[in-house]
């Protein structure tokens, strides 16, 4: 093996590399399928695609255990899939079927799976940050050492709840990983039009929270960064703030003409697509072959189709049950 061929990237073994690749490709194809189904009116309401950002969810999940809590935004399909939430239950949820992970009651923006400690699917920008702090507070009070990982976008950092949550987490010294996916646009508003300070990690430092940034388009770099972050949290019991710089290749949601950004920019970011970034690296280092990639794609195709079939065959909750889940039984 020639020395020049070895990347200075963090390295990874075949099994782990294929696992990462599989997860990212699963998310990619699942999202593409969801978009198609949305145009065919199988999925309604809002649909926010994670395409382009796969490296963040997949990279982050590598360091989170089954005991850790996860909260995310309305762009959470990727996080749910990476967390191991069943693709069929996600698709059924988007179809509004009883077999969905939230019994069809939530839809795309409210995926919940308590067994996997996946707490949404939250649609109010910044609204789940205080919840994350509270969950971590509860852990502390019960002498539990699990981490609460809270994903949010850079748009949320303008909300008061971000600032209150950072302050409380630092003050109370609780185990929260505040993970910001900076994809440069809060819906149609670029970062520079919404933040006075563009070095987002400074906002964590301002509250006394250990902060860092990472290239969010490279799953191995994200994996390493989150490893470092979780290690810090687990050893100090204090919160951590990680900014992942990434980009969404698709519009904010399905019905978006993207008048706010140029195609040129999108294409430039597409050059840094996290999936070929990983697969190329694995190929170049002869850790995997093209046949392996094809096999992953085939497997994903089956998985996605299975999820769609599951959703199609699902049932709608009877209308008589409308007022269920207002109060506990």
């Amino acid at each position, binding site marked *: 093996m020639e020395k020049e061929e070895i990347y200075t990237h963090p390295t990874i073994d075949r099994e782990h590399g294929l696992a990462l690749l599989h997860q990212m490709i699963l998310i990619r194809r699942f999202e*593409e399928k969801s978009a198609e189904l949305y145009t*065919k009116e199988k999925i309604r309401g809002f649909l926010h695609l994670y395409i382009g950002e796969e490296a963040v969810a997949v990279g982050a999940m590598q360091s989170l255990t089954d005991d850790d809590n996860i909260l995310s935004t309305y762009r959470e399909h990727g996080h749910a899939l990476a967390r191991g939430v069943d693709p069929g239950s996600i698709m059924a949820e988007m179809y509004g079927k009883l077999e969905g992970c939230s019994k069809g009651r939530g839809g795309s923006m409210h995926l919940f799976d308590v067994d996997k400690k996946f707490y949404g699917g939250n649609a109010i920008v910044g609204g789940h940050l205080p919840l994350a702090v509270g969950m971590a507070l509860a852990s502390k009070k019960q002498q539990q050492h699990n981490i609460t990982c809270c994903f949010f976008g850079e748009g949320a950092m303008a909300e008061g709840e971000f600032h209150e949550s950072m302050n409380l987490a630092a003050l109370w010294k609780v185990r929260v990983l505040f993970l910001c996916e900076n994809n440069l646009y809060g819906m149609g508003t670029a970062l520079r039009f919404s933040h006075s300070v563009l070095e987002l990690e400074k906002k964590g430092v301002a509250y006394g929270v250990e902060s860092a940034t990472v290239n969010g388009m490279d799953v191995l770099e994200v994996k390493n960064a989150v490893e470092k972050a979780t290690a810090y949290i687990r050893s100090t019991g204090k919160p951590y703030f990680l900014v992942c710089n990434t980009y969404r290749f698709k519009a904010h949601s399905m019905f978006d003409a993207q008048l706010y950004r140029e195609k040129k920019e999108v294409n430039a970011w597409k050059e840094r697509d996290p999936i070929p970034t990983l697969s190329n690296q694995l190929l170049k280092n002869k850790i995997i072959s093209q046949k392996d990639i094809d096999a992953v794609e085939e497997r994903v195709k089956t998985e996605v189709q299975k999820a769609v079939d599951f959703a199609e065959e699902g049932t709608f909750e009877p209308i008589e049950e409308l007022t269920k889940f207002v109060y506990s039984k």
Partner: protein
Amino acid sequence: MVEFRMPSLGADMEDGTLVEWRVKSGDTVKRGDIIADVDTQKGLIEIEVFDEGTIDQLVIKEGEKVPVGTVMATITPAGEKISSKKETIPIKKETVITEKAKADAKKEPIKQPLKEGSTESHDRIKISPLAKKIAEEKGIDFSTIKGSGVEGIIVKKDIDLAVNMKVESHVEVTGSKKEIATQGVRAAIASAMSRSNREIPHFYLETRIDMSNALDWLKETNKARELKDRLLSVVLFIKAMAKAINEVPEVNAYWENGLKLKDVINIGFAVSLREGGVVIPAIPNAEQKSPSELMTFLKDLIPRARALKLRSSELSESTITLTSVGEGNVDKVFGVIYPPQVAILGFGNIVEEAWAENEAINARPVVHVTLAADHRAIDGYLGGRFLTALKNNLQNPAEL
């Protein structure tokens, strides 16, 4: 063949305008390729194709605005021969099921207010606040009224009915509903009579009238008539009464904070019902009708009255009432005035009685007539004059 349709990009997207095709017939496409530029309310959006294959036909033209779901193009899927094999993607199948499920589930209206905690019925009379208000205004005693509203409550309609029944009962019924109707009739009578008793200070005058002349005239007149056209004495009573009213119009009035004379003479003719109770249709403009015309009129009216097939106008127009005992051995009847009338004239049977005249006594056909009158409106003198006029009219039947 795969149909490519105008995609839905949002719940509020109803249609899109094709601005530009980015492919043409014969081009190969793969998943994710941009097939067209479509203009929407949010701006120009690039539309993706989700299938692999060859563009077969571009169905709609640039510049065309089409609703979501319209076929825009057809694509031959990769690996398939270019022949038409129509594959339709089932759109809206799910929504159809939903609609059906919705329709099925409509039996239990969830949006209806839950009747929790509502009280059981107890001894209170159920009358709607509005009905109660009207009942009080019109002086209706609703304690005997049967309610037709939900849960058997007395509603405005029931009170209105009772108001009409005060003067005469009115129900347009077919045979099967007759019992309900007579129940209503009874209730209305009860209501009216109670009110009459409560409000009208009755006084009574009585006189005997010699019917010899009248009966002789009838006999003569009827000789020339078919059985079915024969006149009965009652028409003479009616006509005589009507003529008498011309002379003493004060008896043909109604009382409402004062005496208000009527300008028409509509004699309310009390018809008894076989099932019990009485209806009182009006004979309008009785003074203008001859005894013969009155007979014809009654022959139509009475059967209809007995069958409760009367028009509402017939029931509401009486200005004064005539009641007759009909068959049976009753000499006289003292009536109860139907408010807001001020008098009621009662005729007993025509009986043979001893009659003293010119110091001789013989037997004559006699009818006892009573006048019950509202003492607020009429006094004894007026009443007496009226009865005298009546008596005189019946002595001259030819002039009736």
